[in-house]
């Protein structure tokens, strides 16, 4: 008789125990907004489900030792509303606020988003731009840390082993004047909410003391290639250059060049080129013309 066994660990210790005998047919369940659809599509009717949502110990957002820590059992709704994140990791709070609908955000977890490793996932570019790490627990109870580009490696592919679960995210807390923001567009639609990214971007800049020059920048383009990537030319365009139209145009040009390269002349993706320009202008606007949301205050 086929059956789906359901386990709901209540502590990290119990989770490690559950992970110990994980196999090919073991599935970690967070909000289920990807997993349930996938299981139904693949017609999976047997196996083991480990429910991550009863782990109260993994439901937190806190700042500790110069780091923002987000537990794996934290919903996007909570991430999007958190004051500290909105201030120190604006791009992540903004990305979280734009995942699906309110109903989706109320149940979807960032851990699920990262582990699903879709090229269109919204939190991954933001985490990469923030230089975040994921804490990963294995069946032996050990925790290791991986950066986003070590974790997410292809379309739906990551380096997580069957007996591993993401338990938290670590984001270095900026101590200098910084700003960050996120933007996305869906495919061939004017929609502004409940859209799967057709192109998205996350950008983090560190400003000098005067708050005029960009000392360093991390700009990530998502949904344009199998995995989100650093747009180095765009980062360069921002860094150490004087404010003005020239910097803006150089930034947008660089973004477009990245995207053009990423889509390999595929006609179906051509509109990503206009898309990234639109996002580029808006992101630039938010980074430079609005009041800083970050540590400069």
């Amino acid at each position, binding site marked *: 008789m086929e059956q789906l066994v359901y386990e709901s660990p209540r502590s990290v210790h119990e989770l490690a125990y559950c992970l110990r005998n994980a196999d090919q047919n073991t599935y970690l369940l967070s909000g289920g907004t990807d997993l349930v659809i996938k299981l139904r599509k693949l*017609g999976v*009717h047997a196996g083991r489900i480990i429910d991550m949502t009863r782990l109260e110990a993994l439901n937190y957002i806190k700042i500790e030792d110069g780091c923002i820590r987000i537990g794996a059992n934290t919903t996007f709704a909570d991430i999007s509303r958190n004051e500290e994140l909105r201030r120190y990791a604006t791009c992540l709070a903004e990305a979280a606020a734009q995942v699906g609908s309110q109903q989706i955000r109320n149940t979807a977890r960032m851990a699920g988003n990262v582990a699903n490793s879709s090229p269109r996932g919204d939190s991954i570019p933001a985490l990469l731009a923030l230089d975040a790490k994921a804490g990963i627990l294995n069946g032996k109870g050990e925790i290791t840390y991986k950066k986003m580009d070590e974790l997410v490696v292809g379309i739906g592919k990551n380096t997580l082993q069957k007996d591993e679960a993401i338990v938290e995210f670590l984001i270095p807390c900026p101590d200098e004047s910084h700003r960050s923001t996120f933007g996305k*567009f*869906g495919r*061939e*639609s*004017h*929609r*502004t*909410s*409940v859209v*799967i990214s057709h192109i998205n971007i996350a950008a983090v800049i560190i400003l000098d003391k005067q708050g005029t020059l960009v000392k360093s920048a991390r700009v990530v383009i998502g949904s344009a290639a199998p995995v989100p990537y650093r747009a180095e030319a765009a980062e360069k365009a921002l860094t150490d250059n004087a404010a003005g139209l020239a910097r803006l145009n150089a930034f947008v040009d660089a973004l477009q060049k990245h995207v053009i390269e990423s889509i390999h002349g595929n006609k179906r993706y051509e*509109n990503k080129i*206009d*898309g990234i*320009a*639109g996002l580029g*202008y808006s992101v630039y606007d938010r980074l430079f013309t609005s009041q800083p949301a970050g540590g400069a205050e």
Partner: protein
Amino acid sequence: MRESLKYVGASVPIHDAEQKVTGKLRYLDDMVLPDMLHGKLLLSNVAHGNIKRIDAAKAKALPGVVAVFTHMDAPVNRYNSHKWIDGMEVVKDERIFTEKVRFYGDRVAAVVAVDRQTAERAVGLIEVEYEMLPAVIDPVEALRPNAERIHENVNLLYRKTLECGNVETAMQAACRIVEDRVETPKIHHAAMETHACLADVDPAGNLTVWTPCQVIFQAQLIIAEALGIPGSKVRVIKSAIGGSFGGKGQPVLEPVCAFLAQKLNRPVKLVMDRGQAIAGTRTRTKTIGTVRTAVDHNGMIMARDIDVLVDAGGYFTNGDAVAMAMGKKAFKLYRIENQRYTAAGVYTNTPIGGAARGYGSPQIHAITEINLENTARQLGMDPVEFRLKNLVHPYDKDPLGGPELGNARILDCVRQGAAAFNWKERYFRPKDQGRYVRGVGMACCAHGNGYYGAYPDFITLSLRIAADGFAILKGAFHDLGCGTNTTMMQIVAETLDMDISKIYVPEADTLVSPFDSAGTQASRVTYVCGGAAMQAAQKVREKMRRYAARYFSCDVEAVVMENGRVRISDKPSATLSYGELAAIIQKTYSDEAGETITYQSPGNPTSYGANFAEVEVDTVTGRVKVLELLAVHDVGKAINKGFVEGQVQGAVQMGLGMALSEEITFDTQGRVQTMNFGKYHVINAPDMPEIKVLLVEELEESGPYGAKSVGEVATVATAPAVINAINHAVGINIDKLPATPERIMEKMKVRGR
């Protein structure tokens, strides 16, 4: 008629509001019968091919599977689901299961199992081998002489022309001719509830079918034709419905579900998932229209020539009816002495066209209203001024000799709308200089009120007041969520002057509802069925007055019926409640306080409307935000203001979808690419603009309390108004709907911004 109205014009809540919001209303999928089985359809995943072999062995072996049916087991009878009344001549080309698939979504097989999960899994185990045929997706390609044939005959279904005056001569004399070619897409109705049906068989072999449908007698007729049995052996009961918009007009699942129950001699429920509803039911018909409008120096339209190609999809259904409906509307909006409308219909290997809110009106008016705005632009005229010069006036005749337009108030709509929208100032304001550019556009529209002049349009109703004081109105009413039953209650309450909560209007059931010729379609319900309800109530009222006069030995003129009571004007002691009088009529006179009438529609006036839209275009990405929309409607009289506004709000949402995002798309092999709401984008709540509704209530004499239709016409002007606004904003000419960001950018790049 009393001077002041009590119920008509009020915003009475829909009769089942409480049941809906508390989750108590039982929709079809909530229904369970003892011994019930669950069916699941297998739809084709190729657009064109002959079925060579179907291997259902694995599906049948799955525990819980009761049976699998394919074209080899199904009746060979052909039918056309568009037919709703005996005597209609139609091309019959559809079967319960097909041996040749003609579009991605055609019905191949059904599994019946003890539960839905098993049925779904079993469907995935059926192996179908096709002899693949070239898929014809483009209707223009389908017309080519060497195009692959989709049915035995050529793909061209018909060619028809409507004409008044002399177009050729008038064109030659014109000072300017403006030509446009506009394409409108296949659209999914996107009702919240997908198609569903439940059928049962009694020991005598009679079928009972529950369905969220629009026309019970049509479902009965189609089931009978498909199964080759007398219609009277089929009872169809309309269930609660979670939206239709025309999508549940033609029976799709009814004949299939009835067949499954008949074969298995057990109740079977059949429910579609969203992908099946998108590909495998009906769609708004795709059209490609070319319009040439000839004008003189003063902006008077001298002639117009419209040529439309109608893409019926894989089966005929209403491929010709929708083309004719489109054509007729083109002659009812402007005073154009010389006009020609030519339509050709064609089969393609795409999902089937059918009824969809507006029945061709959204398509024809998108084509012509985009062209008219362009004409005004080319003339350097204000599009509102241009239209005001040419629009029809009240009581104009139809130039084709069709039903008269009635109290046509489109001029009032445009004048009042333009003032309320501050049109002139917004239209002529200097263009925005930055990245985001605003523009305004407007469009007018016309739609009918029933079938008078084209098909039989009558309804039989039975209204009776019981001794308990309640009134029951029996008729084949199908509330589609628009408030049909409540509207009837209001009309009866008003006419009889009685408490509306004591009026009961059950839903349609072929066994107990008197006959109705056409059901809930063609925007006929308020005008025709409402007219019938009013007449039935008047007759009951007169009958009660006669009996009251007899009972109290006075003149009929002295009998007053008011507020649920009968009294005699000069005899204060002589008073009875309606219930008491009904009891007396039964006991003393062996009669009932009721009447059964057959009401023939008195006409088919035209309902009009105008939409004014403001949009903002992101010139970097082509993204559009609709900032504001004003909808002005000539409704004669709003029986229920809340319903009318609700209809307009919802209709605008659909119109915005048609303008901006809704389109069923295909890959090169004809596979549907938009099989879920992640890919098929309706306009969602956060993107809805503020919608203002303005009603022109100038009373249509032939309608009940002056009312005419609004539910369909309300979706017509939105798409062209929005397209015109986009064109106005960035100076382009959108010729293909929906105007996606990509299409807008393409046009802007050509224009060289």
